[in-house]
């Protein structure tokens, strides 16, 4: 279903930044994506922004999925800046978890691809990640010409 846009499996980094270590949500989303044929690179929580940039670089990531249950999403704009500085702004970032409505605008403005709130459906998430991964792939291919 979700592989429709992609000849090869999407590579998705599922991780957490900031101080909150609860990773139940991340695990559920990781399972959704795996069961949709994607390759999920899973890390410990509490990643620093620089670490996420390194992970994305080393693992040739297409999409980054962050889970935020506390206030961790507030540093996402800094992550977006760091990705850009590393020439990785083809990588789309999505956030899932508890994110107050009033902060959505700020996050979208920073370049966040999608925001999923509790109750988001499997299909929704999978389709979104597949579409964003396809876009990222295309940019990479155009950039490198191979």
């Amino acid at each position, binding site marked *: 279903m979700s*592989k429709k846009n992609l*000849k*090869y*499996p999407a*590579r998705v980094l599922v991780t957490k930044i900031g101080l909150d270590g609860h990773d139940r949500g991340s695990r559920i989303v*990781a*399972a959704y*994506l*795996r*069961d*949709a*044929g*994607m*390759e*999920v*690179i*899973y*890390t*410990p929580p509490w990643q620093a922004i*620089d*670490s996420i940039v*390194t*992970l994305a*670089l*080393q*693992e*040739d990531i297409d999409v980054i999925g962050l889970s935020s249950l506390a206030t961790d999403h507030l540093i996402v704009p800094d992550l977006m800046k760091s990705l850009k500085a590393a*020439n*990785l702004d083809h990588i789309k970032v999505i956030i899932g978890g508890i994110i107050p409505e009033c902060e959505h605008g700020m996050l979208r403005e920073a370049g966040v691809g999608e925001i999923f709130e509790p109750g988001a459906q499997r299909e929704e998430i999978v389709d979104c990640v597949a579409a964003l991964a396809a876009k990222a792939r295309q940019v*990479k291919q155009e950039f*490198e*010409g*191979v």
Partner: protein
Amino acid sequence: MEQHSKDKERFFKTLKSGNVRTLARAITLVENDVSFVEPLPKQENYSQVIGFTGAPGVGKSTLINSYIDALRKSGRTVAVLCVDPSSPASGGAFLGDRLRMNEHIADPAVYIRSLSARSHLGGLCKNISQIIQVINYTEKWDIIILETVGAGQSEVEIAKIADCKIVVVCPGYGDEMQAMKAGILEIADILAVNKADMPEASHTAKELKSMLQLRPAGARNVPIILTVASQNQGIENLLNSIDALLN
């Protein structure tokens, strides 16, 4: 076509220069289509390849994490390829070896890459040799570490690929011993008994030793090394044994 081969030439030049983004891209491209490496020269191997295999959960990733530390202290650069199984139903994969190797993330002399087996049997992924060829080509990584999927009895493909094979076992695996009998023992250059903090470890080591003694006379010496990967114990010993085999 003309443009494409120019692009490719440029890409390989960037790869050779040591650019990590390009290395990561190159690995994906080779993973997906093996013909990608055709233009690369088949040169002398630059990197030494060390393989870690063993049953699920014995501590391969944790042991590799400690071993990377020791390698870095000896001044060597390290590329790690960790293979995890893919889901037979969807073809997707949950690649979790990074959970145990997070501490090297800020070290630019350590490159870690998670790979899915993509239904390939044998413990590695289909194009692993060509992925190694790409890393060799950069001439930037002294050591390549391979972690196989949690292996049972038949995942011996690593024997053909690694210069040094470490079979990791841990105490308390009844069927682990079955696996050893069935063949994985034959490929081991070194046996690491990990989780040596558990009381049965010395028993496991003894049992392995007597199994080795059953081999025909003249069989090569296989060191048995006790490690506690989670506490960095026995790692010097492991490093020295591996180095002795490599040189």
